[in-house]
């Protein structure tokens, strides 16, 4: 159930889904300005996930878990022959091994879970931290990262661009386009929907005057625009007030509403070659 502006990375928008996709509401803060670590911490607090796992200990615990536990519980502790440990009461009530370590020493022989009495407390604590990190990786969507999105065919992408984009743009528009964005995902987002503050303009006619300019606010009842001289005008919309809206991004909105996934991937793969 999540809020704020469009744009930004998908990782950013993992927090802002209600605004973004209508899904779940989340934290009402501006994640655009946060570092990945801050976003992760804010989501962790919002979700009430408790203490942050010790990642160094978890890294030490990873090979131990793989060797001793993964065959039953799966490599990411999400279950195999044995149950998933992501929602295990024993894991979720433990903070830094104080409950898990004594349990792991003895196991639960009645349920087919062996004890690990020969492992040191430190090793078992490291396994406990590894488990806490697996929970974090699942439950804290503030840590999610998009994978390698370059799955398209660049030559086909070039053909699409030549066929669809050149009535408005020239090759100059796209020269070095990939170098303008910090990730392929940013590139993909921005070629589909370029950000322009001034993309909506309006011509307003009242019984006495005419105004034209960049729209900064519009509702059923009021319009505010900034004209070429930088002057701001607010006009109440009533009888006799005619408002004509011009959207410079109308063609891009058409792309948003009709673009096929293959074409999206291919064009992004092509643009990524234009560094």
């Amino acid at each position, binding site marked *: 159930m999540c809020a704020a502006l469009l744009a930004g990375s998908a990782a950013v928008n993992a927090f802002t889904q209600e605004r973004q*996709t209508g899904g779940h509401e989340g934290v009402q803060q501006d994640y655009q300005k946060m570092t990945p670590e801050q976003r992760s911490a804010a989501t962790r607090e919002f979700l*009430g996930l408790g203490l942050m796992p010790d990642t160094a200990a978890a890294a030490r615990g990873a090979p131990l878990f793989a060797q001793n536990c993964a065959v039953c519980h799966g490599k990411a502790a999400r279950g195999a022959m044995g149950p998933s440990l*992501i929602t295990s009461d024993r894991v979720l009530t433990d903070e830094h091994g104080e409950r898990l370590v004594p349990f792991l020493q003895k196991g639960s022989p009645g349920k087919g879970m062996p004890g690990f009495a020969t492992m040191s407390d430190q090793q078992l604590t490291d396994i406990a931290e590894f488990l806490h990190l697996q929970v974090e990786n699942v439950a804290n969507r503030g840590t999610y990262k998009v994978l390698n999105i370059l799955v398209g065919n660049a030559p086909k992408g070039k053909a699409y661009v030549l066929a669809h984009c050149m009535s408005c743009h020239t090759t100059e528009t796209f020269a070095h386009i990939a170098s303008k964005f910090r990730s392929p995902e940013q590139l993909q987002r921005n070629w589909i929907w370029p950000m322009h503050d001034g993309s909506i303009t309006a011509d307003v006619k009242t019984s006495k005057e005419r105004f034209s300019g960049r729209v900064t606010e519009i509702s059923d009842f009021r319009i505010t625009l900034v004209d070429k001289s930088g002057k701001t005008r607010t006009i109440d919309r009533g009888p006799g007030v005619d408002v004509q809206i011009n959207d410079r991004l109308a063609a891009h909105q058409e792309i948003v509403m009709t673009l096929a996934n293959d074409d999206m991937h291919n064009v992004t793969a092509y643009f990524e070659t234009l560094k």
Partner: protein
Amino acid sequence: MKLFAAICAALAVTSVVGASLCAQVSLAPNAIGKAPINNWPTFNGDYTGERYSTLTQISTDNLKQLAQQWVYRITEVGAQRGAPVPIIKCTPLQVNGVLYITIPDHVWALDARTGKELWHYDWVDHGGHLVGQRGVGIWNSTAFFLTPDNWLVSLDANTGKENWRKNYADARKQYFSTSAPLIVKNHVIVGVGGDAMDMPGFLDSFDPVTGNLQWTWWSTPRKGDPALKTWPNEAASDHGGGMTWMPGTYDPELNLLYWPTGNTNPVFAGQGRSGANLWTESIVALDVDTGKLKWYFQVSPHDTHDFDNTTAPILFDRIVNGKPQRLVAQAARNGFFVTLDRVTGKYLVVKPYVPLDYSSGLSAQGEPIPIPDKDPSVGGSINIVNASNWPAPSYSPKTGLAYVNSVEGKAIYYLTDDSDNPSGYGGTGAGIGREVRVLQAIDPLTGIAVWKHAYPNLSNAPTTVGPSILTTASNLLISGDDQKNLIIFSADKGEILWHHELNANESGGIITYLLDGKPYVVFGAGDSLYAWSLNK
């Protein structure tokens, strides 16, 4: 009576003893479900979910006299986890001159005549998400409240004193509660939310006196159930989601609850849960006394877009092909408008009400068939944003139309976990392009909009797809835009009749009632509750 209530209200402020002697609030369970006139006793006013008022005192002719009577602003609660300022997302209840409002961890009782606080209940949570709170449920002189960390709290409705508390879900497993309990006879029906750890959804029924559990219905099948064939294995079903976080509706004659179930888990990554994934993303009909499933209709089989099917299922009766028929309709978050026979669950209408291209058609049962290419993918997949959400829709028996504030727009959905065994959300979605908010008046017998109003705006759809809607017998439709305007439309034609700019967008539910013969319209907007009426 008026004087008596006023004295009680005054005593309640100064003396707990005085308030308990007065006992001005008492709502017999058999009084719930009738058309609300002098009160607004449940989340939806009655059990139908129509949010239609038979009152006609406020009408097209006197809207100029509409004026604010009082405002109650929440001032004593600061920032909560994830929420810098309180936002009222509840539908207020009004019983015997007392209004009940909530935000996460807090309940207030207010004097409905003045907006003065009568009592305030403050819960200290130990976990849970503080994203919203939809309101209390009232049974006789008891108010029931759900906490973020999944406690059902029984309060004396006259004093705010706690009678008992009962925990029904583990917040550490990311279950959290935002709902308003639904009161039916001697049942307190409690739904739950939660996504982050792939837990199964459920609905609980509690005894209103003792708090004892009467029954539990699970949103996904348990061992031995034939519906397990819609899951690859029992473990996937046990971790399959289907939260019940919005109040359902109820037909007293059929004795059936109609409950909307939320998204499937893992949310965006469907590769580990092949199949339709019953009974997530469905409307389910349950016997209110036993919790037994009577029928289901799955609105989004094998959902991978967080289509979280929680918009209200509205109950209404119509003549269809010359015969009276009991119907249930929903403007679903997946963009389809659904009308079903509520006795059998058989579909009459399943039709897109926003532009969408992710479905290849309907199954024999009328369920939309998703196109696999539109699933979230590593390279990104474009699909619609949620077309509606929890803010209340409405149905007017007068116009025969269903009303919903919808959103038309797209998002790119990425799969962030492409393993065979994903868990949690497993992906993410980010809106792209312009999202247009559109108020629609849909004929539920055809699924076609009779009129639409697109709200002009620069920014995209707001944080919630609200505001909520209320319709009246005087042909009014009360709702609003996302630029702080409360707007009254004509319900039959969609003409704007009146508007007023508030300090925030309407954010909960809009209610109406007569108090001392005076018609009120009451709603929350941001941190404030507003009461409007007609000035002479």
